[in-house]
């Protein structure tokens, strides 16, 4: 690996010392190195690698969280049951629906905010701080708050009525199969957009000022400068933002658990919510592992496809 060779080459002074001392020093260095990395490696093994492997294994058994009899292999039973379960298909559909709407809207809105902040004017720091406040508010608190505001006689409907001079009457947002998911999408974008605004912003700052000056000399207008300077300059940031927003969107859980419990009529249930419901509330660890496995495959596939589509073309 390139990182290691670089480190090896960087220490010529030690090699200069006498042979015996060098071997002993090397052995000591290796021993200390392993000792220092050990706590993190052991913790990651126990709380990351083993559970990930377990997810693959348990999905093919009938393990329950608390069971008097030991688990045994059941082959593909969990998966056949899963594919016959209409609620699972609903959760898959809803997860996709959420991701397909939220990913482009949130990344686009975040980029717009980043462009608004990335200018030389007084108060940008204040604006940036204010746009960022929902990000530091817990998603659980945000979900409670919006559940309150989405009430039939709540703040959202009252704002809609006032703003439209009583033309729009609003609805019972979270108790309506057509509006529940869009309501959750809107709230989720409101909460997380500031996070991705900051990441876009750090990408914008890597674009050298000279390129804009050159474009200006060529008579480029604002749109052309965005199209030919900003957009190509954001390629690496774009990949990162797409991957993180997509994975976060696919992992939708807290909003559902606080606001709708998957309802009305399973119109907002998601994959992670289903996994938690079966695995924790019904204690069917194996069945939940099967759902998690499919979720894992989905996340992996999406990030691979996005990395491929947004890869460096040169």
């Amino acid at each position, binding site marked *: 690996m390139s990182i290691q060779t670089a480190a090896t080459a960087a220490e010529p002074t030690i090699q200069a010392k006498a042979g015996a001392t060098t071997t002993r020093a090397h052995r000591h260095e290796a021993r200390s190195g392993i000792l220092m990395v050990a706590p993190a490696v052991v913790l990651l093994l126990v709380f990351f690698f083993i559970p990930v492997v377990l997810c693959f294994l348990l999905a093919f058994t009938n393990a329950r969280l608390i069971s008097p009899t030991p688990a045994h292999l059941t082959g593909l039973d969990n998966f056949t049951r899963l594919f016959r379960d209409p609620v699972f298909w609903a959760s898959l559909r809803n997860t996709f629906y959420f991701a397909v709407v939220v990913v482009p809207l949130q990344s686009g809105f975040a980029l717009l905010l980043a462009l608004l902040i990335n200018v030389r004017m007084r108060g940008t720091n204040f604006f940036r701080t*204010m746009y960022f406040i929902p990000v530091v508010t817990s998603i659980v*608190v945000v979900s409670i708050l919006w559940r309150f505001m989405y009430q039939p006689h709540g*703040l959202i409907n009252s704002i809609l009525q006032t703003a439209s001079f009583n033309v729009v009457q609003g609805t019972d947002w979270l108790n309506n199969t057509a509006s529940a998911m869009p309501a959750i999408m809107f709230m989720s974008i409101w909460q997380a957009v500031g996070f991705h605004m900051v990441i876009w912003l750090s990408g914008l700052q890597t674009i050298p000022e000279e390129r804009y000056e050159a474009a200006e000399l060529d008579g480029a207008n604002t749109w052309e400068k965005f199209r030919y300077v900003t957009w190509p300059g954001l390629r690496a940031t774009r990949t990162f933002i797409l991957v993180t927003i997509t994975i976060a969107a696919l992992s939708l859980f807290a909003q559902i658990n606080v606001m709708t419990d998957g309802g009305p009529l399973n119109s907002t249930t998601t994959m992670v919510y289903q996994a938690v419901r079966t695995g924790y509330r019904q204690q069917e660890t194996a069945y939940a592992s099967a759902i998690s496995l499919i979720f894992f495959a989905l996340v992996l596939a999406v990030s691979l496809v996005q990395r491929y589509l947004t890869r460096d073309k040169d």
Partner: protein
Amino acid sequence: MAIDTTAAAPAVTSAHGRPRHETGWRRAGGYAGRLVLVVFFAFPIVFMFVSSLKPDDQIFGDISSIKAFLPVGHVSLDNYATVFDTVPAGRFLLNSIGLSVVTVALGLFVNSVAAFALSRMRWKGSGIVLAAIIATLVVPFETFALPLVWWVNKLPWLTVRGGVPLWEFGWLDTYRVQFVPFIANAFAIYLFYSYFQSIPKDLDEAARVDGAGWFRIYRSVVMPLSGPAIATVSILTFLPAWNQYLWPLMVIQSEQLRPVMVGVSYFFQLKVQWGAMMAYSTLITIPVLVLFLCFQRAFIGSIAASGVKG
């Protein structure tokens, strides 16, 4: 307001793609647009604070006017009293503070020491370990959370019963299950690693000539130079620790062990008391919000640093 008096951080402002001489009207329009967005992001939070001070009937009475956002009428702290009557809120807050502090402190040590060994020391297999740690970043916690519940229920723990050490099994419903799995953090290791790479290696060479051991170099040479990395990792591990919800929901049964976010379920039983609920939400939001407003530049910098992951 303290935040907007200072000019923006140099790293964050540059005048890309803006005409140099804006007319007064254009500038006013620019400010107006940005202020509308401030209202868009702030109004729910203001509504939450204000509603937490009002009785339920007045919250709904004020809702169709601007009064919904103003602390007027029967303003009192009654809702906060209700919160402490219905929920062991003090206990939950203490739990969350304790768990967050322990997760951040232990995490800082374990992850920086590991990153030091990976960045500074030569030993067989360090390249593979680093690659394996970075590979874990693509797997979200939600994918293995359920098998992890099953797994921690089987883990051993050494206890002492009547002077005799004894192995017990099962980590469910304890404090340790709420922080031990989150101490080692691949992303924190990665951030420390890339920061350490930027510190010149001549510095530890000099220290070693003076006879300093490896741990000494870590403690007195590298860590004192790593303030920004320490701030970034602290913030990026504190926020999820404070916001823990899915995990404690699954592994904690006892009321006295619960963290703040799980406490919200108390308010959804029987009749929903919205005023009290807004008071509880305010209580558990304020600590983070105050930290954010005090260290907002570090907060935003740490999020920007997380973008280098791509």
